[in-house]
C-alpha cells in the first residue's frame, strides 16, 4: 500500500511529457461521434416506439411493441450518462427515466393511474405535466411487464396509457435532440468564447465529460449493483433497475459501453500510450467480470447462484471510476471538485 502511494505521488508530480490536451478537439470529437448521433438514434427509437404503441389495444402487436420498447431503452442508455445541457435542463433525464427511485414512486403512481383510469392520458399536454413517476421508460416498463413477466395488453385504458407514455418519451427525445443539435452544440463548440454563458473555458467541456463518465460508473456501482446486492443474509434483487423488463444486467453492460465510447471519442486520443493501455485493460477486466455474472443468467439468479461474482463486479465498477479519475484527470489537468470534495 505504501509503495503504491509513493508510485502514485511520483506519477502526479512528474511533468507531463506530452502536449497540452486539445480541449476543443475533445469537445468536437465527442459531439460528432457520441452526442449528436446518440441523440438522433434515441429520437428515432422513440418515434418508432410511438408507431408501435397505438392507443387501441387491437392495433398493437405486443411482441413488436416490447422489442421496440427495449430498443428505445438501449438507445437511451447510450446517452443517459451525459447529464448536462438538454438532459439536465428541466430534469429531462429524470422525466425520461426516473431512477434511482428509492421510494418506489413509479410503481405507486402507475398503480394509481390504472386504478383511477385517469383521463389525463388522452391529452398529451396535460399528461406531460403529470408526476415524473407516471411517465418515462420505467412507467412503460410497469405497463408492459409485471413481477412475473409480460402483461397482456387487453384493457383499453392500459393501451391508451402506453400510447401516452410513448408520445411523452418521443416529445422529450425531440427536445433533447433539438437542444443538442441546436444551442448546446454551439455552446460546446464555442466554449470559452465571450458570450458563451455555459462554458467559460474550453477545458470546462472536458471537465463536464469527465464528471459525467465518472458519475455514471459510480452511480452504477452504488445504485445498479450495491442496492440489489443488499446484505449476505438478504439480497434485494427487486431493487435492481428495470428487472421486470429483464434488463438489470443489460443496463450495467450499456453503461460500460457508453462510458467507454465517450472516453474513446473524447480523452483517449489525447492520452499517452501507457494511460491508454491502463484504460483498455480496466475496461477489458470489467467486461470479463460482467460476463462471469451473466453466465449465471439474470442479475437476480447471479445473486443466488454466485453472489461473490456480483460483489466483484460491484467493486470493479467502482474501481473503474477510480482508475479513470487517476488516469485521465492528471493527464488532462482535470480534477474533481474543490468545494464539492469536502464540506464547509
Amino acid at each position: 500500500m505504501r509503495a503504491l502511494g509513493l508510485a502514485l505521488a511520483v506519477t502526479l508530480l512528474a511533468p507531463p511529457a506530452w502536449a497540452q490536451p486539445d480541449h476543443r478537439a475533445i469537445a468536437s470529437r465527442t459531439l460528432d461521434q457520441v452526442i449528436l448521433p446518440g441523440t438522433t438514434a434515441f429520437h428515432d427509437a422513440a418515434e418508432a416506439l410511438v408507431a408501435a404503441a397505438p392507443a387501441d389495444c387491437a392495433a398493437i402487436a405486443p411482441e413488436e411493441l416490447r422489442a421496440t420498447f427495449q430498443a428505445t431503452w438501449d438507445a437511451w442508455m447510450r446517452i443517459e450518462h451525459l447529464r448536462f445541457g438538454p438532459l439536465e435542463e428541466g430534469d429531462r433525464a429524470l422525466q425520461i427515466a426516473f431512477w434511482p427511485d428509492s421510494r418506489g414512486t413509479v410503481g405507486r403512481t402507475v398503480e394509481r393511474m390504472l386504478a383511477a383510469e385517469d383521463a389525463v392520458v388522452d391529452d398529451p399536454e396535460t399528461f406531460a405535466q403529470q408526476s415524473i413517476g407516471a411517465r418515462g421508460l420505467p412507467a412503460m416498463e410497469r405497463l408492459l411487464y409485471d413481477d412475473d413477466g409480460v402483461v397482456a395488453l387487453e384493457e383499453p385504458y392500459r393501451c391508451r396509457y402506453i400510447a401516452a407514455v410513448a408520445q411523452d418519451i418521443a416529445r422529450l427525445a425531440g427536445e433533447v435532440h433539438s437542444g443538442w443539435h441546436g444551442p448546446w452544440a454551439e455552446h460546446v463548440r464555442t466554449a470559452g468564447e465571450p458570450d458563451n454563458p455555459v462554458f467559460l473555458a474550453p477545458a470546462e467541456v472536458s471537465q463536464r465529460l469527465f464528471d459525467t463518465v465518472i458519475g455514471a460508473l459510480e452511480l452504477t456501482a452504488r445504485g445498479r449493483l450495491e442496492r440489489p446486492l443488499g446484505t449476505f443474509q438478504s439480497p434485494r434483487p427487486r431493487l435492481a433497475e428495470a428487472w421486470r423488463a429483464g434488463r438489470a444486467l443489460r443496463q450495467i453492460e450499456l453503461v460500460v459501453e457508453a462510458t467507454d465510447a465517450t472516453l474513446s471519442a473524447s480523452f483517449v486520443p489525447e492520452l499517452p500510450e501507457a494511460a491508454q493501455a491502463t484504460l483498455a485493460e480496466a475496461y477489458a477486466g470489467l467486461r470479463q467480470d460482467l460476463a462471469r455474472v451473466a453466465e449465471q443468467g439474470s442479475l437476480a439468479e447471479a445473486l443466488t447462484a454466485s453472489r461473490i461474482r456480483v460483489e466483484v463486479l460491484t467493486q470493479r465498477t467502482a474501481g473503474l471510476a477510480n482508475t479513470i479519475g487517476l488516469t485521465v484527470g492528471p493527464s488532462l489537468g482535470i480534477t474533481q471538485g474543490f468545494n464539492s470534495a469536502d464540506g464547509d
Partner: protein
Amino acid sequence: MALTLPRRAFLATAGSAAVLPSVSWAEVGAPHYLAAAQVGERYRLLGLGADGAAVFDLPLPARGHAAAVHPSRAEAVAFARRPGRFAIVVDCADGRISATLDAPPGRHFYGHGAFSADGQRLFTTENAYATGDGRIGIWDAAAGYRRLGDMPSGGVGPHDMLLLPDGETLAVANGGIRTHPETGREKLNLPTMQPNLSYLRVADGTVHAQVGPPPALRLNSIRHLAVSPDGLVAAALQWQGEPEDGVPLLAFHRPHWSELRLAEAEPYQLAAMQGYAGSVAFTGGGTHAAITSPRGGRIMAWRTEGGAPAIWSRPDVCGLAAAGEGWIATDGLGGIVALDETLAPRALARHGLAFDNHLIPRRAA
C-alpha cells in the same frame, strides 16, 4: 490579476504604519466582493469588482473560509477553515496582516464572523470543545482586536452569523453538530443533534428568539445565513441523512415566526442538490433567495413568497452574493457568473484558481 494599488492608498498606508489602517474601501479599488481562493498549493484573498475582475489579490497563510468585512475601513477578517484557531485581519490596501486573532484556550473558530453596525466590535462563532457549547467571541475592533469576552451562541456548532438590519440583533446558525479538534471534522452527536437559528441581542447577548427545523428534519444542520433589506432571514441547510432523501435545504424566518418556512420543490429536484447547500443569498431587493450546491453542481432560486424554483447547473458552484436584482456566483473552476432572478447566466470572468466556499459582499446586500 496583480494588485495595482492606487497611489493615494499606498501613501496613506505608508504614512500610518504604526497605527490602525485608515484606508477606505474606495481607495483599494472599491471591491464589491471578497473571496478566499486556492492557487496551486497556496491560498489567497481576492477583492472582486462587480465585473468579476480582481481589484486586489492578497496571500493568506492557510486555507480561508469566509471573511467578515469592516463596514468602513478597508479591512477584512479572514477566518481559517474550521476547526481553525486563528483569524487574521488583513489590511486590504497592502495585504499586511494588521492583527491576528487567536482562539482562547479550549476554543476554535468555525470560519465566520460579523461586525457590529458601527464597526467597533467583531463577533466570532466558536466551539468550547470540552463541553461542546457554542460561543460567540467578542473582540474590540477599535483597539487592535483585543478579546473582550464572549457569550453563548444559543446552541451547538455555531457556523455562520450575521447582523440584522436593525443593527441590534445577531442571527446565529447553530448547526447542531458537535466536533472536537482531536477528531478533526468528525461529527460526534448525530443521534442527538438539534440545530437552531438563534437571535441574540448585541447589547447583552440575550437570546430573544430561537427556532429549529421540525422534528422530521432534525438532521438538517442550519449552516449559512443571509438577510433581506427588510430583515427576512434565509438559512441554507445541510442534511445529515442520505443525499438522495430530497429534503428542503432553504428556510426563511423572521424572529417572531414560530416556525421556519421551508422552500419547497419536487423531491427529485432537491435530491439533485445532494443534501448540501453551501451558500445562500438574497437578490438586492430581497424578492428572491438562492442556494448553491457544489456537490450537486446546482443553484436553486425561489421567490421569497414561495412557488416553484428556478434551477441552474454549474459544477462545483458554491460562492453566492447579491448583484442587483440577481446574483453573482463563484466556483471551484475559477468561474464568475452573473445570474438574473430566473437564474439566466452571463459569464463574467474565469480566473486561474479555485474559489473557496463563500463570496462575501462588502456591504450586507
